[in-house]
């Protein structure tokens, strides 16, 4: 195991103090209030709205990067999580999580994620501050309901649409929180890390550190660091994507989300490209309607279906070699696509972050009544952004290829490994090619 970051006394002191994560929560909550105020009552035009700029130009592009670097740390300081904690503290009924949520939570997350992406395109949520405000208010209500009736952070663990994405991305993250099994074996504290004690609450994400194998649900809130009487908790750095190589209990719904995210990246890219107009026109001729919702829905289904179909084909080929069913193949190898998902996601949003980044400052100044001239909002020239995008896609593809290799090696012997490996490597190559092609085309902006 690599160096335990908690050996650093300053860091341990900070994480075990009452300041963490409260100090970050206070900041994000305050910013969230300003954003909500702007979205709902601020300028109607997206390009003048500070809330839109903060949400879609700064936060949304940064979030996948945060997941990769810090795992689900964002979930610990997320204003929705803070709201849930507050509601729970004062009026929470602390009822057990309903069984259906435990069983189907990830499917609900999958469905919500797809639905919100679809709704954004059909109703222009990102382009409309009011629409964005309504989305956040809707989520707020969900959080309040969850916090008022159910235990801990039921919302974050089982319902948050971003939580599913965060879980998948955090698996590829560079930070791992685990308990030292040797120390835990001698622990007689009746699992205070799960149940909580006078030093702090139990794990809000329903994790039991002693048995944790994944960082998918750990939000690094350090509650377990505070409560553990034996200092068994360790936070270590690890190579990105390492966790994907050894998923012991792969779940189909998680693998499916990973595959679908690739489709979402395609949709996000395609609809922001110049080619989208001509595609739309061709589609209108086929469907014989110019109804945008109809034509977009068809595109959306195709884009979602494309990676699923490609994966299905790869699984069909692979089953000949590894003697597993298509579903088992999808379940095991679906995780391998996560690095490419992350790369595509970050590369897409890098454009918004770097080509429109100054919009955050401009809109902030406008919020205080300062006139901003129509200077470029770009932080970096577009050709430089494109180079970074290609670089990310190449890195993502390489990481996915290695994940395919590692998964194959860990699950199957040498003989059964090769055929499946070639099949999934071809899939990664195709998805890589599609991504590269998409990033060669000029893209629209959000502001």
């Amino acid at each position: 195991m690599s160096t335990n970051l908690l050996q650093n006394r300053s860091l341990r002191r900070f994480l075990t103090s009452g300041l963490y994560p409260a100090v970050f929560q206070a900041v994000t909550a305050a910013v969230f209030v300003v954003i909500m105020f702007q979205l709902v009552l601020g300028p109607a035009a997206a390009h003048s709205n500070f809330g839109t700029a903060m949400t879609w130009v700064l936060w949304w592009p940064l979030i996948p990067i945060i997941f990769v670097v810090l795992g689900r740390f964002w979930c610990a300081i997320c204003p929705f999580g803070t709201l849930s904690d507050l509601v729970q503290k004062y009026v929470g009924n602390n009822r057990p999580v309903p069984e259906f949520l435990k069983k189907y939570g990830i499917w609900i997350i999958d469905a919500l994620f797809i639905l919100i992406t679809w709704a954004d395109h059909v109703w222009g949520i990102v382009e409309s501050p009011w629409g964005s405000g309504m989305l956040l208010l809707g989520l707020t209500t969900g959080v309040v309901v969850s916090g008022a009736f159910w235990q801990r952070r039921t919302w974050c663990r089982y319902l948050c649409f971003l939580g599913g994405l965060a879980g998948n991305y955090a698996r590829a993250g560079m930070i791992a929180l685990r308990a030292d099994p040797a120390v835990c074996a001698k622990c007689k504290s009746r699992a205070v890390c799960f149940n909580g004690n006078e030093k702090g609450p139990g794990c809000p994400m329903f994790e039991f550190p002693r048995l944790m194998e994944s960082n998918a649900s750990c939000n690094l809130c350090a509650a377990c660091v505070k409560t553990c009487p034996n200092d068994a908790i360790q936070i270590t750095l690890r190579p990105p994507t390492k966790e994907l190589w050894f998923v012991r209990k792969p779940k189909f719904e998680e693998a499916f989300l990973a595959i679908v995210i690739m489709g979402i990246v395609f949709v996000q890219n395609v609809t922001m490209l110049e080619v989208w107009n001509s595609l739309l026109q061709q589609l209108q001729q086929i469907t014989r309607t110019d109804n945008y919702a109809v034509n977009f829905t068809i595109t959306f289904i195709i884009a979602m279906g494309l990676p699923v179909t490609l994966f299905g084909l790869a699984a069909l080929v692979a089953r000949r070699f590894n003697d597993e069913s298509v579903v088992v193949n999808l379940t095991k190898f679906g995780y391998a696509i996560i690095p490419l998902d992350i790369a595509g996601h970050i590369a897409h949003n890098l454009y918004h972050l770097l080509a429109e980044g100054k919009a955050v400052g401009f809109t902030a100044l406008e919020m205080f009544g300062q006139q901003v001239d129509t200077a470029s909002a770009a932080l970096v020239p577009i050709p430089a952004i494109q180079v970074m995008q290609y670089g990310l896609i190449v890195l993502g593809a390489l990481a996915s290829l290695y994940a395919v290799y590692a998964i194959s090696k860990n699950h199957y012997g040498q003989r059964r490994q090769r055929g499946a490996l070639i099949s999934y490597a071809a899939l990664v190559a195709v998805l890589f090619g599609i991504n590269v092609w998409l990033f060669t085309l000029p893209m629209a902006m959000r502001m």
Partner: protein
Amino acid sequence: MRLLGNHVQRRSSLILAIVLLALLATACGASTTDPAAIDHGTMAGMDHTTMAGTTLPGDVSIETVHASYLDIASNINDLRSRVAQWQAGDESSINIAKEKLERIEILLSSTTWPTSLGGAVAKTRQAVSSMNPALNGTNLQAAVVMAKVLGDAAHDMTHDFYGAWLTQVTGQPLPAMATHIIYLDLSANINDLKSRVSAWEKGDEASLAVAKEKAERIQVLIQVATATGTLTKPLSAIQQRLPAVSTALERKDVTVATAALKPFSDASHDLTHDFYAWLGTTAGSSDPACAQAAYIDLSGNITDLKARMTAWEQGDTSSLNIAQEKMERIQAVLAHTNWPVPMAAAVGKTTAAVQAAAPVLAKPTPATSAAALKTVSDSMHDVTHAFYNDYLPQAKVAMHTPAGAEAQQPGVPAAVDDLTTGHSGSHGHAAEAAAASDDASKGWILGGFGAVNAMVIGTAAVLKTRKPARSRARKAAPQAIPSGGSAE
């Protein structure tokens, strides 16, 4: 017991606080209603029919859609020519192009579009957002490509506007205030028709098809204009003389077409004369569509005025008369329009500048006219800024999704009922009432969210208070240790 009593007391206070919060949230929601809406509601009976806006199901206003379409089309043309100038080496055109793009964005987002234009509007929106990175990144190559895409989108929008939308609303009764925007469109198309026939006469064969298209649009516009009940005489004259032009164009007979254009042109001249006379005798409403039409008219006339004075300075003596005519029109528009508050200061400045310039232009010298025009031009710049940046975003000429706009065919009883009897918001200030009602609905939505959240919190608090002690004791006890890595 005492402890339990204290506990219940604390919970009761909390519940009371939550109920108050809910009431406050609901009240806040309601209070965001624009007081003007209430005023207009009470004024409805007083300010009837003559200047009433036309709100269709889905709060789509015919006049607003028309005005926004014209403004967008004009801005897209300007944007494309600015990109062309940039391509030719004029770097200063980039900022103007950005400004135009911003205006198009504002118009697209501040208008409630009918469903039949939804596809074209979405395309235009997409094209506009595609143009953004090119202009912001000063990427000329991309801007040229995107300008073409934007032009295509605008072409589709024009096609759908005249082909689908205007045809749909033809035959529906329209308020007198709609005259202004229809006149502007009609006048522009008539001018285009004349110049296209002239170009065709000079050998430009491509102009024939465009001329035919213009003639078709004029035909549709006349039918729409007839529904306003104003300017019947010149409109009827144009309607009578148009078929001769159209037939000649169909037969590709340039001589007959040119000859037929003369009486048609005279009728259109009468239309312009009668229109501004009508404008001078009526008072405009503060309906957004009225303000939009007036702004477009004012802006166009001031641009023409400057061009004519420049021509006069360069020796074209006939331009002076036309410039003076433009000045009269500018004065008529300024006086006719009930300018909205966000534009009032800038319009006031322009009115003063125009009043000062009028006597100067009656007997101009190059030096005095240039100074007078500069003042007018500068103040008009402020009007433009106030119109796009202050007025349009807050006027929100469109706040609702254009659902139901397809039900605008005359045959649909609900639509006809709304138009003929005038529902609550359509007496005089339809779009303002719509804006106010939108603010109100937003307020209610926010209040609704607040109330729902407060009710959830309240219910949770009540349930928590009623929870038996046994249950609480169980909660306090450590939970079973999960068998896996998580509670699952």
